[in-house]
């Protein structure tokens, strides 16, 4: 399709006087895996509920597949697969009954998808058990099945790997990659940075209801807040570096946080009696934490 699959424009949601999300703006392109990062209470789930028409925005708009989203947008939701953050299902149904129920409600074929079940290690015994008797991880797998089995054009997943063991997480990443290969768009929220690094093309970071960063993963990683360690051969009075802020050090070793382009900094370092320089590639964790601190460079 032309244009973005998801277009969120200044989405704002207040619950009375409490802010859920404010001025949230981003777009998700077709075929993209889009990560939505933020700690608890940042506004991730509020935004996701807005995407599904579960909440009426206080201000702003949301369009999916170029249609305005509201509670009545059944044609939009027909093309979506959704996994809620705290997936519960219907406790009194067996896992198999629940999947069939989801299929019927969607107008999809209620035949259980054997390959998907096999990959998620859901055998006949597990499927025959009532959802209330399943472990959190197994329930989450059932949630993944109901979100994926009808091959939706858009997957909206709220912290999908919660409760999955590492092996199952890898299987899940594989399923996401396959969905993407067949052209599906994936929007998923997470606070697990390693999975975002593995799977996402672009990331939106939300903090206290506001978008604080929206860019490609690589750009985000490269962008700012790199930690620099300089070890000098001899002391230098009042060492300062362009574009860097000293955060500490002992003796001849000095620690900085560098923001932006490092070229002027390296040129400046070349004129100093430098014994060693370490400027490691920042982990997403580091980038993430920088965005989340009120004073990001501290």
């Amino acid at each position, binding site marked *: 399709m032309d244009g973005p699959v998801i277009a969120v424009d200044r989405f704002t949601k207040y*619950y009375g006087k409490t802010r859920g999300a404010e001025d949230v703006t981003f777009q998700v392109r077709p075929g993209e895996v889009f990560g939505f990062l933020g700690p608890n209470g940042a506004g991730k789930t509020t935004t996701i*509920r807005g995407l*599904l*028409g*579960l*909440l*009426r925005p206080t201000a702003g708009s949301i369009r999916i597949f170029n249609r305005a989203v509201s*509670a*009545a947008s*059944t*044609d939009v*939701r*027909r093309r*979506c697969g*959704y996994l*809620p953050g*705290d*997936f*519960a*299902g*219907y406790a*009194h*149904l067996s896992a198999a009954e629940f999947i069939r*129920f*989801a299929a*019927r*409600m*969607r*107008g*999809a*074929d209620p035949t259980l998808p054997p390959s998907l079940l096999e990959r998620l290690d859901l055998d006949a015994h597990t499927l025959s058990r009532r959802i209330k008797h399943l472990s959190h991880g197994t329930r989450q797998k059932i949630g993944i099945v109901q979100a994926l089995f009808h091959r939706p054009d858009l997957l*909206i997943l709220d912290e999908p790997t919660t409760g999955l063991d590492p092996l199952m997480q890898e299987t899940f990443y594989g399923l996401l990659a396959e969905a993407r290969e067949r052209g599906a768009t994936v929007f998923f929220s997470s606070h697990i940075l390693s999975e975002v690094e593995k799977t996402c093309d672009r990331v939106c970071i939300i903090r206290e209801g506001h978008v604080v960063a929206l860019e490609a993963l690589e750009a985000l990683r490269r962008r700012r807040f790199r930690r620099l360690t300089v070890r000098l051969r001899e002391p230098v009075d009042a060492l300062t570096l362009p574009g860097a802020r000293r955060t500490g050090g002992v003796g001849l070793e000095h620690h900085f946080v560098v923001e932006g382009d490092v070229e002027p900094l390296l040129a400046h370092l070349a004129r100093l009696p430098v014994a060693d320089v370490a400027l490691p590639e920042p982990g997403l964790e580091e980038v993430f934490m920088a965005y989340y601190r009120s004073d990001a460079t501290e």
Partner: protein
Amino acid sequence: MQPSSLAYPVLVLRQHVFFTAFSFVIVGAIQYALVTLSNQVDTRSVFGALLEQLPPGFQTMVSETFLTRMTVGGAAAFGFNHPLVMALLVINAVAIPARHISGEIENGAMEWLLALPVRRGRLMVSLWVSASLVSLVTIIGAWAGSFTALAVTGNLDAALARGMIQVGANLWLLVVLVMSYTMVIASFSRPGAPSGLVAASVTMVFYFLYVLRPVWNAIAFLEPVNIFTYYQPQKIVFGERSFALNAAVLVALIGLCMLVAIRRFARRDIPG
């Protein structure tokens, strides 16, 4: 393939099948026992002796609503007003909407459900139909018990049969009204709010005001707004009250409640 319009009602009905079957059996048994007992025992003299022990106000109330109509037909109609029968029906009428609206909003199932290609109004109507069917099954139990006993005791005639069908239908409409205003309360409630308890309390207030009315004239002005005014089974059986009037009032109130509930539910935030 189109989404199945039966999937959700079937889900709701399955969840309540045991309580529905239990209600069917208990209500049917009560009706059968009451009709057979009234046919075998001279209830008029037994209850007349008991009545003399009561204060004058209660004598008026009991004789008006109970004793003067303690014929076999009157007993059958009284069964439809028995506190246990009313309790079973009201529990279902209150519990089903409260559980499927407030309960599912609270436990997250509603969020998942409304993320499916489902219209909220349609979901509410499906829930209403399912809960109405559950109540209807209990009423059918009462009819089955009454008609069987009346036939066995040789008291069944066309007029009584017509009266019993009207009483059952009247009771069903009353219960559906309770269910409908529970849906209104649930659709306005915040997650975790005890909407079932609120609806049950409202129903209890209506019931006590109705029971106290004959001995407390000060509350006579509340009679037209009390839902139990539009359900008086013995008066229907004895042709003292119009079933059509009762049904018209109850149907109008049900329609109003459903309009409010659907409109509110369609506009509310989930979970809210």
